[in-house]
């Protein structure tokens, strides 16, 4: 049984009001717009795609407390399905995105029945194993269709004003996608369903005693989170027009986990902040630090031993300390 520590509080100290959602969305849009002006725009597009992936992982790990080492499988599935759709069926990017997300969701529904049977370490490892199978299928097993390690080159067509070769247009579209995912996750996590999955993170036996069908909740969250992971995959395929097996490689999982941890798990802002910080680091530092993996490993150790609540967790503490403690509403 896990030991609850203070940072695993179910409810945030400051009660959240639904009317804040619009302000939150404007704030995120503003921050990304500002970043697009400050940095190169194709970097910020990269951040946006990665942030959606991290957000989807945060639902599974941060909110439901299930650590998966195979989340990238669904990301890669979405990317490959979208690429194949673009090459073989139609160059319509919206159709490719829709079919990619759907196929990612279907895969998660089927595999979900197997992985949700397990908990804790076996859950992590079985996801890792499935990810490895997926990687092998893409790189070797189905190489006839995916062109193995050479990767797939595709070209997304234009639908109305949506032209992925124009960076500002692509950026606005992807930012819209990020905001949509954020909005969906905010609604879900505020709902009774969100409270239920956070309670499952705390202690799933007690939730079961309360009469909830926890298998259903876990399966639903797994499917939802994996479907959301397929979404940025399709966006990646449509925007870059190139997909290689590295996108589905199990090594990619540690980047997502790292991003969630550095931003603060169980917190939507944390996921976005973590995604941006990780991408900034890998863009700026990876060129100057030759031993990138060692650096990443050392930072992960620091995060685990002394910085568990992530950037947003400490920012939250700091804010609480600065202003007089607000009355806790029930």
């Amino acid at each position, binding site marked *: 049984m896990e030991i609850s520590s203070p940072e695993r509080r179910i409810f945030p100290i400051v009660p959240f009001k639904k009317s804040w959602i619009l302000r939150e969305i404007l704030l995120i849009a503003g921050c990304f717009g500002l970043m697009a002006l400050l940095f190169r725009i194709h970097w910020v597009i990269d951040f946006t795609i990665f942030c959606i992936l991290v957000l989807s992982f945060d639902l599974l790990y941060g909110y439901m407390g299930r650590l998966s080492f195979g989340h990238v499988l669904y990301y890669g599935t979405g990317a490959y399905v979208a690429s194949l759709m673009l090459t073989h069926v139609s160059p319509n990017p919206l159709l490719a995105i829709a079919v990619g997300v759907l196929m990612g969701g279907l895969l998660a529904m089927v595999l979900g029945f197997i992985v949700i049977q397990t908990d804790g370490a*076996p859950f*992590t490892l079985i996801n890792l194993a499935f990810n490895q199978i997926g990687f092998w299928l893409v790189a070797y097993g189905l190489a006839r269709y995916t062109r193995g390690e050479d990767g797939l080159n595709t070209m997304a067509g234009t639908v109305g004003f949506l032209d992925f070769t124009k960076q500002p247009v692509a950026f606005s579209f992807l930012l819209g996608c990020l905001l949509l995912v954020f909005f969906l996750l905010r609604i879900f996590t505020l709902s009774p369903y969100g409270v239920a999955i956070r309670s499952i993170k705390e202690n799933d036996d007690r939730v079961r005693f309360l009469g909830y069908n926890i298998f259903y909740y876990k399966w639903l969250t797994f499917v939802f989170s994996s479907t959301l992971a397929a979404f940025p995959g399709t966006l990646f395929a449509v925007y870059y027009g190139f997909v290689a097996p590295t996108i589905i490689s199990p090594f990619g999982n540690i980047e997502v986990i790292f991003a969630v941890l550095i931003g603060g798990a169980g917190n939507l802002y944390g996921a976005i902040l973590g995604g941006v910080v990780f991408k900034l680091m890998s863009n700026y530092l990876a060129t100057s630090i030759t031993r990138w993996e060692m650096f990443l490993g050392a930072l992960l150790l620091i995060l685990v031993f002394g910085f568990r609540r992530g950037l947003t967790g400490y920012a939250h503490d700091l804010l609480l300390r600065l202003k007089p403690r607000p009355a806790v509403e029930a």
Partner: protein
Amino acid sequence: MLETIVYGLTIGAILYFFSIGLSITFGTMQIVNFAHGMVYAVGVYLFITFLPWVAGIFPLALALALVAMLPVAYAVERFIIRRLYGESLDYTIIATYAVLLIGADLIKWIWGAQPQPVSDPLGVSFRFFDVNLPVYRVIVFLSAIALFLGLKAFFNRSIIGRIVIAGLEDRNGVRCLGLDVNRYFSIVFIIGSGLAVLGGVLYAPIATAEPYMGFHILLVAFAVVIVGGMGNLTGTFLSALVLGMVIAITGRFWSTAADTMVFVVMALVLLKNSLLATWRKLTGLGSKI
């Protein structure tokens, strides 16, 4: 075909050497130890470095690699695993994974990224039914059987082994007897790490050493541990041999699919369990109440 069987048994033996440490840490401490792969890979690279120093004497280089790696294993146990003990499982997974990453990068830094071959220390093979069988592989397999019997004796006869077995069943019960379970677990942890180095060194002449070898064998070994049952010593032995055969037979027909087939088998085993559970729920057969 005979060649394939011998190859499968050899791979199974190596998997057993590697997985036994994982299985025990799983069973006793409920910890997924990704750092096991680091100890394995760095041990092999140290062995390759030591081999020319001791004029190519295989056992001596092996002993030196073991002596060098045991303190590292102790450090991982003392400073990472024990500090995270009793806390959430996720943090140990992430922390030990970080150690694995650092190890892989360290290897790339010191020895370079290109694979390093190791030559067969015996280089002799014997003919058996018109098939050339390398003596070395047979020796590896026999040593795995010896290890299995040795570990059986260790866990059934020696006092440390019995304490660990008791701890596997009921930690708190053993602690109530006034025994420091963690100390015995760390002894077993270090033995397991030593066996991983041993397995890696024995495997090096069959495959080649490369920086991510620890990660690759970890994936397969996790499947071994899950199929065999966590902390189940006999189950680990049998599942290592079976999965080794699966790798060898698949590899004979479709070489790139060899490792992946292991995960398919693992998924089938898991699926079988869940199907059985559903069946029992529906029919009421075999339920305890």
